[in-house]
Each structure stands twice: as C-alpha cells, then as structure tokens.
C-alpha cells in the first residue's frame, strides 16, 4: 500500500503533522530500532560466546559423563541427530505437503472435503508441538508399531528417530502446504488451459508444468519447515528420549538400529545443558546454540536466495 514512491523522494514530511502523530512516528522508529538491536544483540552475543567456547573437537566427540565441562565430551551425537531428524521429517512432510496442496488447488472436490482439509491444515499449524508429542507417545507405544522403536518384553518404548521425525513432519506440513498453494495459485489459469489444449492430462500438467513452475515456493516451504523442525524441542524431548548419546537397538541392522533407538538433537542438548537442564554446562550450551544458530542463519539465507532468483526469473503476469 505504498502511498508514495519513496524512491522518487516526493514524500510528505512529518513537519506539518500534529504533535500526537509525530510522537507516533517516534514510537515507530524506536520499536523498529529495538527490533534491530535485539537481533544484533542475539547474533553478536551468540557469536562471541559460541566462538570462545566452541572447540572443533566438540563437533566430533560424543557427549560422555564427566564431572567438569572439560571432561564431558562434545555434542557430535546431537549434531548428527539434528541432521537425521531434519532429513527424515522433511522427506515425510515435503511429499505429503505438496500432494495436499496439489489436491487443494487442482482438484479440491468435493468442496466440503476441501474446506475441511483447509481447516485441518490450519488447525495442525495451531496445535502446540507438546500436544503433538503426547499424541506421538500414544501412537508409537502401540504394540503394532513396535518395529519402529525399542521393544523389551512386549513393552514398546515408543521413543525413536522414527517417532520423533513422524511427529516433526506434522510441524512442517502446514508451512509446506501454504507455500506450495501460494505457488500453484500464482500460476494463471491460461497456463493450465494451454497444457490441456496440447493434450496433456491433468496429472501430466501438474507434474510437468505446475510443479516445476512453483519450485521456488515449494523450496521456500521446505526450508521454512526445516527451520521449524531443527528448532523444535518439545517433540524431541518427549519422543527421542532423555539421553545425550545414540542408543541403538541391538536386534536391528544398520541403519535401523540407530533409527529405532533413542537419541538427541542440538535443541535437546541446549535444553539439557542449560542451567535448568540435567547437565548444567552453560559453555557447551552456548557452543551448541551457536551451531544451531548458524544452521538457522544458513536456512534464512537460502530462503532469501531462492526468493531473489525467483524474482529475477519473473512472473506470468504480462
């Protein structure tokens, strides 16, 4: 709603405004600068703390029991755990989310089901992740799903990389759906009609025309989803187990022994290593938080890159 084109410099100054309006503008500036200050403070503080406490050996040594922060190893298991969870969860959420979005935009019949689906996706976005986690404990301690986690004497442990990833994919799902829908909706009707006119089926149009065109939005959705997945802690605490090391299951073969076992991620490590957690090693918590922050920054940069590329390619509207 740009009132005036700021680049042309023809902006009505605030000099003629009433005092109350000018005070409002001052509040705007103050809050805007406060936001910047908070962001800078977070980044600078974590960089300083992270670089001073992060030892590269921490990235390669697993956590171990010890009396001091020097003895208790690093967080390689947590780092690997974050990567495993991210890959598994997004590889569930991405196809499901894209498929849901395609159905909603391209098919969407019966209309009642489409409306229900829309509200479902919205509802999933609003569900606290701790509730998802509790629901996960019910699903995955079911004996029928015992093959997804540790089982001993008929009792299913219900905590594993499978369980955590499945629930985390629900956290990412609404973001993927929303972003993909936006992409599909921005493709004008005549593009589809042109494709049908040359004899392509609807399915082929989706596969060959619509999905490739909305790739930037799908990628954005996936990366936003990834950000939420690697940042989530509640589901990890509940469904991945309260351990700082991989706890592979003996009876399964690689890699399923690890995936069925309990583990940890960076978020869980930060939580446990903070003063309120069980480990209380603030220096390592800072180091792990720094690594986590770097991942988030990288994801943000990637989203920016995709956006800029997509803008360069241009849109359909001309």
């Amino acid at each position, binding site marked *: 709603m740009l*009132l005036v084109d*700021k680049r042309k410099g023809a902006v*009505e100054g605030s000099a*003629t405004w009433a005092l109350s*309006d000018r005070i*409002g*503008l001052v*509040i*705007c500036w103050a*809050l*805007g600068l*406060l*936001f*910047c200050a908070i*962001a800078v403070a*977070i*980044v600078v503080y*974590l960089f300083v703390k992270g670089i001073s406490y992060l030892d590269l050996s921490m990235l390669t040594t697993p956590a171990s029991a010890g009396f001091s922060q020097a003895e208790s190893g690093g967080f390689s298991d947590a780092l690997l755990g974050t990567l495993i969870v991210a890959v598994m969860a997004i590889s569930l959420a991405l196809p499901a989310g894209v*498929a*849901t979005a395609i*159905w909603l935009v391209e098919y969407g019949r019966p209309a009642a*089901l489409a409306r229900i*689906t829309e509200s*479902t*996706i919205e*509802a999933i976005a*609003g*569900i*606290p992740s*701790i*509730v*998802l986690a*509790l*629901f996960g*404990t019910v699903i995955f301690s079911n004996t029928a799903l015992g093959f997804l986690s540790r089982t001993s004497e008929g009792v299913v442990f219900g905590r594993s990389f499978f369980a955590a990833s499945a629930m985390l994919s629900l956290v990412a799902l609404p973001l993927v759906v929303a972003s993909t829908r936006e992409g599909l909706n921005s493709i004008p009707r005549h593009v589809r009609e042109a494709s049908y006119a040359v004899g392509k*089926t*609807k399915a*082929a149009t989706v596969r060959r025309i619509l999905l490739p065109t909305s790739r930037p939005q799908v990628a954005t959705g996936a990366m*936003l989803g990834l950000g939420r997945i690697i*940042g*989530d*802690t*509640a589901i990890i*605490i*509940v469904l991945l187990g*309260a351990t700082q090391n991989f706890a592979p299951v003996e009876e399964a073969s690689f890699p399923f022994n690890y995936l069925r076992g309990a583990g940890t991620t960076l*978020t869980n490590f*930060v*939580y446990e290593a*903070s003063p*309120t957690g069980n480990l209380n090693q603030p220096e390592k*918590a*800072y180091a792990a*938080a720094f690594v*986590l*922050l770097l991942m*988030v*920054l990288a994801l*943000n940069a990637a*989203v920016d890159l995709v956006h800029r590329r997509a803008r360069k390619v241009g849109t359909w509207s001309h």
Partner: protein
Amino acid sequence: MNEEFQPEYGPKWSDQRVERMLGALVCGVVGLLLAMIVTVFVRAWPSFSHNGLAWFGPGGNVDDQLNAIFLSGQAGTEYVYTFHAWPLIWSTLLITGGSVLIALFSALFVAVFVVEFAPEWMSNILQPVVRFLASVPSVIYGLLGVLVLVPFIGNHLVSEGQKASVAGVISLSGYSLLAAIVVLTTMIAPLMVSIFTDGLRSVKPGWLEGSLALGVNRWRTTWKIGVRSARPAIVAGTVLATARAIGEAVMLAMISGSVGFAPNPADGLIFIYEPSRPLAPTIVKNIDQLSSPPANATLFAIAAVLLFSAALFSLTGYMARRSMRKYGTA
C-alpha cells in the same frame, strides 16, 4: 507390450487415479487430526471426570498434587486424581495475555513503519531482521533468557527488601513472569509483524489515495484507512501468535521458574518478579511420569485444555475474519 508406444502418463497415472490417491492422502491427514483430538480427550477423561469443574479451580499445591498423582500410579494402589490447575492456568493467562498485548502493540507500529514510514534502507534492514527473529529456535531464546535475562532481573531489578518480604512464600531469583513475558514477546512479535505487513501491503491503494486527496496526512491515513482495512490480517496474525504463545513449552519451562505458584497482582508490582509455571511447560517438566496411569491422564488433560484453547482461538479468528470480509484482504 513393453516395446509399444505408451503415453508418458498411461493408465497408471490416469487423472482419476491420481485424484483418488491424492484424495486418500488428504483424508488420511484429516483422519489423523480427528484421531489426535479423540485420543487426547479419551486419555484425559479420567482426570476430568474425577475432578469435575474443580479441575480448573484453585486449591492446594499443584506440585504436591502432581507428585501424589504420580506416586499413586507407581504404587499401583488406588489411583489419586485430585488436581486443581488454577495456578498453572493463571500463569498461562498472565504470560500469554501480557506478551500478546505488548507484541500486538509493538508489532502494529513496526509493521506500519516497515510498510509506510521507514526509509527504504531501514525497511530493507527490518524485513530480514523480523524474519530472523521469527526463525530463532525457542530453545535459543530460552538459553539466552536463562543465562542473561534471569540473572539480570534477579541481581539488579529485584531488591533485597523485596526478596525478604516474600521470603516465607516464594524465592525471587529472577525466574519470573517478567522474564517470561519479555522473551515470549520477542518470540511472537516478529510472527505478527510479518503477517501484518502482508495485510497492510494488500490494502487497496485507491482507498488510501482517496483519504490523502481529502488532505488527511500520511500518518492518519495509514492508521484510519490502512490499519482498519487490514484488520482481518491483524486478527489472523494475533490468533497465530496467541496459539504459539499458549503452546510454547520449552522456553517457558526454562525461564518461568517452574513452580506451581499463582502470582497475585494484589501484592503490588512485585508480582511480576514472582515465578510460576504455565500449562505447557508442566507437561515438559513431568514427561517422565507418563508411565504412571493417573499422571498420564493428568498430563493428557492439560494437553486437552491446550488443544481446546488452540481450537477456540482458530474459531474466534475465523469468525472475526468472516465478519470483516468486506475489507477484501485476507
């Protein structure tokens, strides 16, 4: 057969089949949500049915009650379900309400600033800043809160006299409502800003130009026309942020103080320094008690309350947006 010409998308990928496959998947997602709602409420039922409406009321020490519930399940004798969640609910209301109000105020100003009043270089800085703040994991906010903000409040803001005045009741160490509200506001305000800016950007230019043409200055045009027409987006953003705030578990478990205590505003300003524990962090803190059946039911009851309030918020937001459809922005 294999050598014959086959269209790229033969019968295997016919339209009907693809539509049915996608439809089945969508039904699966809907079914999963329904299953979740049903499961949570069924699991929660014993706790609600034993306590009735007193579940939501005050009475006794919540932490002792939770402990008794857990132990009765371990012992396997008669299960105890007595649970009065008021301190937890009150803490949720205070923390969520406080931070949503502050966040709404500041997000509105920042969104207006970004869209309309900031010079171009400033809005080019602010937009990535907002996106960054929205994507910082909650556990990092929690860590910074616990290692920076909480000690600061405990050492500098709370005076010794204040600590002594409530020494018999609760210890003021910096884990407080104030810390929780400050950090939670920082977490949810960026979410609001990004939705508000989208809403403000899609206000019809003609409406604003009409106001400007009547000689109303830019500031008042933006607030009287722009912000008012963007109300559906403001409701949507507020609802999303509130849902986020209510469900925030880990960060609040780290800095809210984790005591089942209901801060009393009647005590004067000191109540913002008092620790408490909202509903969601209670689940995180007691998660290893899931194996005890009555504790399991109690935790699911808390989850059911969270789920219900999340649903209530989406519904309110939906209704509010419906009634404002005439403004034409989502």
